[in-house]
Each structure stands twice: as C-alpha cells, then as structure tokens.
C-alpha cells in the first residue's frame, strides 16, 4: 500500500494573526543578530508593538468573518486539519491576550524608572555583584532579546486556547512557558531572587507538564485519538475503561491547574510573582491566566463535556480550596507583590467557580448569562486590573529599586495621592466593590455557578470575598491612614514615562468602564458564543 501524501490545507485567512505574532518573534531574533546594538531597543519595541497592534486588528477582522453555524450558538471554523479551532471564544481570547501583551510591551519598554535603562538585567550572564555586572550597567547594556521572547510567549498563549487536539495543546503549553521561565530570571535588581524565581518556576513547570503529558497519554489511550471531537465521541459512547479516562482527566487537570495557579498547585505563584521583574509579573499574571483558562474551558467543555458529572465535583473542591488558600494566606503577607500573587490565586478560585457553572443551553432561559460569557468577562476585568496594579507597583521605589514591602508604602496616600488612589482603585476592583469592573465579573461568575446548583461553592466564594476585602482594605489603610515613617525609610513615587502611564491609564479606564457600563463587553462575550465542537 503506497500512501499518497495529501498536502494539508492551512486556512491562513483564519489563523494569520497567530502566524503574524510568530513571524514578528522570529524577525525579532534576526534583528538581534543584524541591527547595531544602539538601535536595537527602538527597533524591537516598535516591531513588537506594531506586530501586536496588527495582530489585534487581524483578530477583529477574523472575528467579523467567522462563519455562523446552523444552530447559531457557535461561529467559526476548525482549521489546519482539525488541530486549531478559530471560533468565537478563541478570537475573544486572542484579543484579550494581545491587549495584555501590548500592555506588557509598554511596561517592558519603560526606561525612565531605572534612569535610562529597562527593568531587565544589563547582562544576564554577568554574575550578580561583580565588576562585569557593574560595567554592563555602566555602559547601559540591556537585553533586547526580551521582546522576541515576549512575542513567543504571546504566540504560545494565543495558540493555547485555540488548540483543538491534545498534542497541539501540549506544544502550545511549552511554547508559552519556556520564554516565561527565561524572562523571570532577568531582573536588573535583586537578581538572586529573580534567578531563584526562574528556577522554581521552571522546575515546577516542568513537573506539571510531566503530569499533563501523562494525562495526554492516558486520554489518548482511552479514546485512541488526540482530537477533541473524537475524545468527546469516545467519552460519550465508550463505557469501558472509565478508570483510564478518569486518571487521564485528573492528570490533565493537574497540569492545567498548575498553570493557572490553583490550589494545591499554587506554591510557585507567590515566589515567582515576587522574584520576576515586575513588568514580566504583570504580563504573566494576566496573560498566562487568560490563556490557561481558555484551554481549560475548551478542554472541559468540548472534549470532556459529556463527562461533566465526573469533573464538576472535582472542580468544586479545587475552587473552594483555591479561594480559601488565596484569601487566607494573602492576609498574612507583608510584601505587595506577594499579596497580589495570593490575590491572583483567590481570583483563580473565583474563575473556577465560573467554569463549573457550565450547563446545557437548554437549561438556560433566554438571555441568561452563560458560563462562557461570565468567565470571559471576569478574565477581561482581571487582566486589566492586574496589569494596572503591577504597573503601579513599578512606580513605588526607593534607592534599591522597587520597594514592595508594606512598611515602605506607609503613608503613600499623603505623599502621592494620585498613585495611591489609583492603586486603591485597582484593589477595590479586585475586591469586587460595585461600580468597578471586578464587581460585575464576580457577579457574573457567582451567578452561573448558582444557576448550576453549586451553591456551596458560591457561599464559600462569598466568605472568601469577605476575607479578601480585608487584606485589600488593609493596604488602603496602610497607604492613607497610617502616619508615614520618616522620609528616608519610605518609598516614593518615581515619575514614569508615557509608556507606563499609558498602561495604567488603560487599566484604569477599562476598570471604570467595565464597572459602570459592562453591557457592551458582556454582549461581546455573549456574542462569542460557544466553542465549536
């Protein structure tokens, strides 16, 4: 039997934003090789920014052209031999990731805070505290490789929620992770901490991808195929070998939950968020979570949709545990970045609350919020708030760089009311105070969970919200109502360039607008519809 090779069809019209980001990343690497050092910074930033904007425009164009399917619930197409699903939710995730990435590029390119250099190590290979390092920073060296690395990560993030088979999913997971491992270790200040964060992130990340992969193997063993649609088919029809499937689902979940930082797989989050350069933390906290939730949603809804009754209880437990761990441990933190990290863990729990609210379309009444809509909206609000909050953290500095311990933030409200006010606003949004985006997001995920009958989770979520409010408000008290220490012992606000200001402004605007008139974005999220099976 001579197999005739048939040329694969690749629908470039649908996936070109994805390809564009990839191409920009590759061009960035080439630029490293050929453009003189003094011009690299400007070329790389402009290229990365322009590439992302173009991809964003492309995403909009693609989104408008998606074919509507017969039942009207889903739009889009499954492309590239069934490995990539470009549907409504997928393009929504693309757009969100690209916006966050744009914010990331702006923060990466900020050079005013460090007095003319970026927040990244001048020469990562130079040992900390050596003459070589001092020399490198003296002549203002900086790694412009961070932009291609960022773009590769963005590419992975975009591919992650789009992947329609387990193999592509695994590759995307690695593509998004590897650049982030590297970026984490490149801080200019506190390099030991940064390298250590990279090591921890890497080791635990590799560990979790081991689990993920074993899950892939077992699921493949159960279904005999990597494609989501085939898996769904097998799950629906095949009643033998349930244990194979269950173990497979469990292992896959471990890998994915690790990426979103859900308890009990959260232990890397605070360390990595604290050690990584703050621009990376901002980008990673928002981007990874968005991408990973996209993947979780697609995997669970499309591939394991028929097994809802087995994985939903598991997610119940994980969601409750995550919220409790995040909220309770955040209370005892004394470092701003760690506190935000634990808060992001708590947010993961809230998001999971939304994920487990999935119901059959027939169970929902007209115009009722769907689980997908709720999670998409929550991710939007969360992404902007995280980006904004970490951007503010980069501004508060003392002589040794960013000052992230609580003690140094004392009385910031009196010295810099604007910055402290902005930070307070982001915190209030994360706490879910009405008229901020966070509130609407929380409302949406709680609603879908309650509709699906997960009232114990909702009650736990409410209790955790109360705890969460406490630690957010504590920071506000610290900034506004605690008398500051003498000037030398507290941090002050450094005036940023337009880049960081723009990021904060966008984050703020989004948080306000989504809080006051969430309608359009909710509608957009609703319009994204369901996953294409």
């Amino acid at each position, binding site marked *: *039997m*001579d*197999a005739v*090779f*048939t*040329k*694969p069809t*690749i629908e470039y019209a649908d*996936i070109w934003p994805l390809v564009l980001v*990839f191409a920009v*990343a*590759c061009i960035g*690497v080439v630029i*490293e090789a050929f453009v003189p050092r003094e011009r690299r910074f400007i070329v790389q930033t402009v290229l990365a920014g322009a590439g992302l904007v173009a991809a964003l425009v492309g995403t909009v164009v693609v989104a408008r052209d998606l074919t509507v399917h017969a039942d009207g619930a889903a739009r889009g197409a499954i492309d*590239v*031999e*069934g*490995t*990539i699903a470009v549907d409504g939710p997928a393009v929504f995730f693309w757009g969100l990731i690209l916006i966050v990435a744009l914010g990331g590029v702006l923060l990466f390119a900020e050079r005013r805070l460090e007095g003319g250099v970026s927040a990244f190590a001048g*020469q*990562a*290979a*130079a040992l900390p505290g050596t003459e*070589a390092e001092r*020399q*490198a920073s003296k*002549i203002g*060296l900086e*790694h412009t*490789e961070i932009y*291609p*690395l960022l773009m*590769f990560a963005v*590419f*992975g993030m975009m*591919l992650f929620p789009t992947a329609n088979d387990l*193999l*592509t999913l695994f*590759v*995307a997971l*690695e*593509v998004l992770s*590897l*650049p982030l*491992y*590297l970026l984490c*270790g*490149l801080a200019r200040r506190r390099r030991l901490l940064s390298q250590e964060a990279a090591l921890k992130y890497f080791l635990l990340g590799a560990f979790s991808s081991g689990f993920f992969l074993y899950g892939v193997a*077992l699921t493949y*063993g159960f279904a005999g195929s990597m494609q989501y649609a085939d898996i769904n088919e097998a799950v629906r029809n095949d009643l*033998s*070998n349930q*244990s*194979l499937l*269950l*173990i497979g689902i469990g292992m896959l979940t471990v890998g994915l939950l690790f990426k979103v930082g859900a308890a009990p797989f959260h232990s890397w989050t605070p360390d990595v968020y604290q050690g990584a350069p703050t621009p990376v933390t901002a980008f990673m906290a928002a981007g990874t979570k968005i991408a990973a939730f996209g993947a979780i949603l697609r995997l669970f809804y499309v591939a394991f949709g028929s097994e809802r009754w087995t994985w939903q209880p598991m997610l119940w437990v994980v969601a409750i545990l995550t919220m409790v761990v995040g909220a309770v441990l955040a209370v005892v933190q004394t470092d701003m970045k760690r506190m935000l990290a634990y808060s992001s863990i708590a947010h993961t729990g809230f998001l999971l609350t939304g994920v487990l609210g999935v119901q059959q379309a027939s169970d929902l009444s007209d115009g009722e919020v769907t689980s997908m809509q709720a999670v998409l909206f929550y991710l939007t609000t969360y992404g902007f708030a995280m980006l904004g909050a970490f951007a503010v953290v980069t501004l508060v500095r003392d002589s040794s760089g960013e000052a992230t311990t609580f003690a140094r933030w004392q009385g910031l409200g009196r010295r810099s009311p604007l910055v402290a006010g902005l930070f307070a606003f982001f915190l209030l949004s994360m706490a879910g105070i009405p008229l901020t985006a966070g509130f609407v997001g929380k409302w949406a995920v709680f609603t879908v969970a309650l509709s699906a009958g997960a009232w114990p989770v909702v009650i736990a979520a409410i209790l955790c919200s109360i705890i969460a409010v406490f630690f957010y408000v504590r920071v506000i008290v610290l900034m506004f109502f605690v008398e500051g220490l003498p000037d030398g012992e507290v941090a002050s606000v450094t005036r940023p360039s337009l880049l960081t200001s723009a990021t904060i402004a966008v984050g703020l605007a989004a948080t306000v607008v989504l809080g006051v008139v969430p309608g359009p974005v909710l509608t957009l999220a609703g319009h994204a519809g369901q996953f294409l099976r």
Partner: protein
Amino acid sequence: MIAFWILAPIMVLAALGILFVRKAVHAALLLAVVMISLAVLYASLDAPFLFAVQIIVYTGAILMLFLFVLMLVGVDASDSVVETIRGQRILAIGAGVLLGTGLVVGLGQISLGTAVGLDDANAPGNIQALADILFSRYVFAFETTSALLITAAVGAMVLAHRERLTPKARQPELAAQRVKDYAEKGTHIGPLPPPGVYARHNAVDTPALLPDGTAAPTSVSRVLIARGTIRSAPATADAIDEIEKQIGWAPHSGGSGAATPPATTDEEAPAAGDGA
C-alpha cells in the same frame, strides 16, 4: 514480550536507583540505562523511528547535556540528606506511594482487549507513515516546535553568553601594567616563587619556606589554598618520626624545634584567600 520482561525489572531498578544514589552523575548514568531500555521497548512496540530517536536525541543529546552540566557543576556534587522542611520527604514518599498505587491499580484493572497492532499503519514503512501524519495533520504543531527551539537557543545565549565589554589585554599591555604596578604599589614584578622542596608526592601543594622559616603564601596556587589541600611544611616535619619509623630509621630525638613552627600556611591561607 521477552524483551519486556527482561527489561522491565532492569528499568524499575534503575529508576529506583535514581531515587537513592547520592551522586548526581550516578543518577545520570542510571537514567541512561532506563532510556536505552526504553528505546528497545519502542522497537518491540513497532516504533523503529522512535527507537532511533530515543537513542540519538534522548540518550545521545539530552543526557549528554546533563552530563556536561554535571561536569561544570562538579562531578562530586551530591545530595544533602538534611531535610529543610520537616517531614517533607516522608510526606512526599507517602504521596508518591499513594499515587503509584492508585495509578497501578487503576490502570491494572482496565481491559484493553486485543491490540489492533500497527501492521496496517506501518504498511508504507514506519518512517513514511509518521512523516505523512507529521507533515499533514500535525504540520502546525510541528512548525510551532520551531518556536521552542528558537526560544531555547535565545535563552541559552542570554543566560550564558557574556559579551566582552572591554578590549582584551594583550602581552604588551600586560607587561606595561606590571611595571606600572611595581612603580606605583611596589608589586613584585617577577614571577611568583615556586613551591617548596619537601616533595613527597605532589610538591605544588607544599609552600616554600622563607629564610625565617615561615611559609611563603604566594608560592602555592590560589586554587589549592581555596580547596584547602595544601600541606604545611612544618606539619610535614611533625610527621618525620612516623616516616622514619616506616623506613626503619631510629626515632629522631630533637624534633621539638620543628614542633613549634613559626607559622603555618594554614594560618596564612585565609589571608591569601582574601588577597585573591
């Protein structure tokens, strides 16, 4: 199946060995055993291509990389058995046993039925069939892996490559610098003194003695001082009785003078280390 039953115990034992050996390099070698056995199993599972790739890529490239890094880190690198988190090891083993039992029991009770076998799929040849799938259905994933490889290359460059920031000093510059140092700071201009002459088996680790009987710290390599393997000449003198006994000489009676050395390199070593 014969290959399986022979190799499976070997693999499990080798893998268990990784858990228990102290030295990292032994772990790497045990891992190599597992990987090569795996390659054989792949061959027995109708995957000749993977058999080759496993040996070439995994055992040949990846594991060698591990060994390189182990060389850089120091082959002697071994684990400490001190627990930093109390009970963590016990807990980890407990969790592992639980996971293992769960997996083995769970996977042991499945009934897979008769294997379909790969005779049909491999009909055009295993490599051709794989290529067919690789370049059609998984072509995008395949292309995507290039992102991984580029990332890896860029990452290795960023973390390991150090650019020269100042021009490398050559012989004339070095010579000029030495003379300058001598003029300004009085640094000794000539070569450093050679090590001591009390050669027993490795003279370079024995410092030379100055006229007043003290050890000359500059006469031994800094590296040896840092490692702490230098031998002090007076200490050697102490051992003279022992040596004489061994070679059959009468014990030397007047050794007390040597027993109170004016200085030892052990005392000098930290100072030399600081200077370096």
